């Protein structure tokens, strides 16, 4: 019993919090390291036994397989696995990008409809959300693909689409616009889009001071005028290659794969149901007094929604919305089920089977999704900070 006044009580070394915490952390690190070492040893042995190459040498090897939808030039004989990777990534981004646009539009509509004063509309929206959310996405994709699109008439019974297109169980064939001297036009379009975004951002700040320009008109002008001017200056012309019905296939035109349509439909509808819930929660988070105050000021329902409710609801909506966008992007990997050539189908499917290099292929694929996830999170967090009204 050492009760000698000024001397600090001696605590055994192993009872001191800092020592304990250090001990636990060292143990954890050792355990992780041991696990990693065990895995690496086994991998080396297993690969040597199975005579599987390692490293990223396969990236420049000729692929030798065809891909049904390519946004960039690709051929089985001349292109490499690396090229196939980019084709797959672009296909994933295409379906995810379009899906996000469609899902947002449908989701906001349904979310607002759920709070409609119209009994039938609100009920219908509620049923839609309940039904879609409770059925696995994979089942919905299989349904759209196998039961709806594959049940369309075959090539001979093609349904004619107004404007010179065809719809059958091999896809949707549309006239393909061919633009000569398209480079400057595209550049002008991108420039116009950038200008429109910049205008939107600037106006947001100026608008707060009450000096706004008519937003819609200026934005439209900024987007439409530059490409038109560029087209006139560069003398480009637009012509359409119309798909032609052959005996066994359809030649020319723009071909939209049924796999693509099924995936886009399934992803958009499924995600829209979740977005609708986020939108509803966000709208309901705005206190009722805000609506009443807006009505008292003489604003109509539409104006109230647009000017008072939605801006405040957006800060509640954006974080779950971001999550849904990421979910949609990740869920696009279910393309494997219906054979749409996305990143997973091409890379972890065909390339993995051809090369047998499981670790490299899976790691690359995971890294891509992880990058997309982290980048989107960062972007949307920035957007959320931007739209959050400054509070005094």
């Amino acid at each position: 019993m050492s009760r000698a006044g000024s001397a600090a009580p001696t605590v055994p070394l192993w009872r001191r919090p800092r020592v304990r915490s250090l001990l636990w952390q060292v143990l954890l690190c050792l355990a992780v390291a041991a696990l990693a070492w065990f895995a690496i040893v086994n991998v080396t042995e297993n690969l040597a036994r199975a005579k599987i190459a390692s490293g990223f040498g396969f990236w420049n090897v000729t692929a030798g397989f065809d891909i049904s939808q390519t946004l960039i030039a690709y051929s089985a004989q001349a292109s490499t696995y690396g090229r196939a990777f980019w084709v797959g990534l672009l296909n994933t981004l295409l379906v995810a990008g379009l899906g996000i646009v469609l899902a947002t539009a449908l989701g906001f509509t349904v979310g607002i409809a759920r709070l409609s004063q119209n009994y039938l509309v609100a009920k219908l929206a509620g049923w839609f959300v309940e039904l879609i959310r409770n059925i696995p996405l994979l089942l919905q994709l299989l349904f759209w693909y196998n039961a709806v699109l594959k049940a369309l008439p075959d090539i001979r019974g093609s349904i004619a689409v107004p404007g010179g297109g065809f719809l059958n169980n091999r896809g949707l064939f549309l006239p393909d616009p061919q633009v000569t001297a398209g480079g400057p036009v595209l550049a002008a379009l991108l420039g116009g889009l950038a200008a429109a975004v910049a205008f939107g951002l600037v106006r947001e700040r100026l608008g707060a001071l009450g000096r706004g320009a008519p937003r819609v008109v200026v934005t439209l002008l900024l987007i439409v005028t530059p490409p038109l001017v560029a087209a006139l200056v560069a003398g480009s012309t637009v012509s359409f290659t119309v798909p032609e019905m052959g005996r066994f296939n359809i030649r020319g035109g723009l071909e939209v794969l049924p796999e693509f349509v099924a995936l886009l439909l399934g992803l958009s509808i499924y995600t829209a149901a979740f977005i609708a819930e986020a939108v509803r929660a966000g709208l309901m988070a705005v206190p009722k007094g805000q609506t009443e105050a807006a009505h008292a000021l003489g604003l109509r329902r539409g104006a109230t929604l647009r000017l008072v409710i939605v801006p405040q609801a957006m800060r509640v909506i954006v974080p779950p919305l971001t999550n849904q966008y990421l979910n949609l992007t990740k869920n696009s990997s279910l393309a494997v089920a219906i054979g749409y050539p996305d990143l997973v189908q091409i890379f972890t499917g065909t390339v993995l089977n051809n090369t047998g290099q499981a670790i490299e292929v899976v790691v690359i694929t995971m890294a891509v999704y992880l990058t997309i996830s982290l980048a989107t999170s960062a972007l949307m967090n920035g957007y959320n900070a931007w739209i959050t009204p400054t509070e005094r």
Partner: protein
Amino acid sequence: MTDLAMPAHKSVAFVRTTPAPRVPRPPLPGGPLHWVRTNLFPTPFNGLLTLLVVLLFVWTVPPLVRFLFIDAVWMGTSRDACLPSAANPDPGACWAFVRTWFSFFIYGPYPMAERWRVDVFFALLAFGTAWLLWLDAPRRGLGAAFFFLVLPVVSFVLLSGFPAIGLPTVDTASWGGLLVTLVVASVGIVVSLPAGILLALGRRSTMPAVRLFSIGFIELVRGVPLITVLFMASVMLPLFVPPAWSPDKLLRALVGIAIFASAYMAEVVRAGLQSIPKGQYEAANALGLGYWRTLGLVVLPQALRVTIPNIVNNTIALFKDTTLVFFVGIFDFLRTIEIARVDPNWATPVTSTTGYAFAAIFYFVACHFMSRYATGIERRLAAGDRR
């Protein structure tokens, strides 16, 4: 003051001394007509919407009812029953097909003689789930022990067999259907809840190495699609272990699902932990409780209780995600339907749609009741705040 003091007879004011007769209250607007006016036709635009929705109903509901019930074929032994005939020129859902394949959807290729074992497993699982979900059940601690410790062991012995006690071994390759769906989902829950709690605690830990490891694991797994995690488990896991230990297909998928579910569960639990005020920790510390006792006696009982609805919602997501084991060659419920629907004996134009309709009804009913339960618990937990 002076006015009131004036004698009544000299005033021009009239002061009533008897109460006015009661007037019945004006009739409130009511009745079905008023309801229709305020809820269906409040504005011209809304009236138009109402008409559009009614039109949509008229256009979709009767064909759907015809397909599912009126024109549906209930009896039959082969595709002939579901092909257009004179009696039924436009046949609806081919339920006869589902009846024929029903036991395959439930058990997969599990040996016929041993299927009672699967039934016992279903019963045990239902019992354990009910014990866990019924908040007023007696001895819920025992229920948790049953679900998280006893059930996994008993189920494993029961399903995969134990020759020493007279249960012949059944290879996991012949498990299938609903059995596999439930096995995958319940393994996901049984592993992910404890693992998720540990990861969530790790993420809030003051030890940098533990925190970093937890955050890394959670964000890595949540940042990639489940399908890549499953591929990783199915093609990389066998490389990570000596060939003698190489796990079978089902086990690989289970590992993938468990990893994935744990990361998501960790975030759900973390939200619950964050809802516990700091004062609770401080009070526990003041009482002299250490870290684990603070957690076990004070924090977790409160945190998990408010998290139940989210845990159930997470379970719904997991239940739907079990369909993805499809991609690593496991015969789950959806996969058995995919197999059955291309059976040449039942090749009719309506077979696929019937199969999908059956699967959709199954998943919808299961998920719907889980979400109803979660909503009920949420209401019950909020009851305290409503006082």
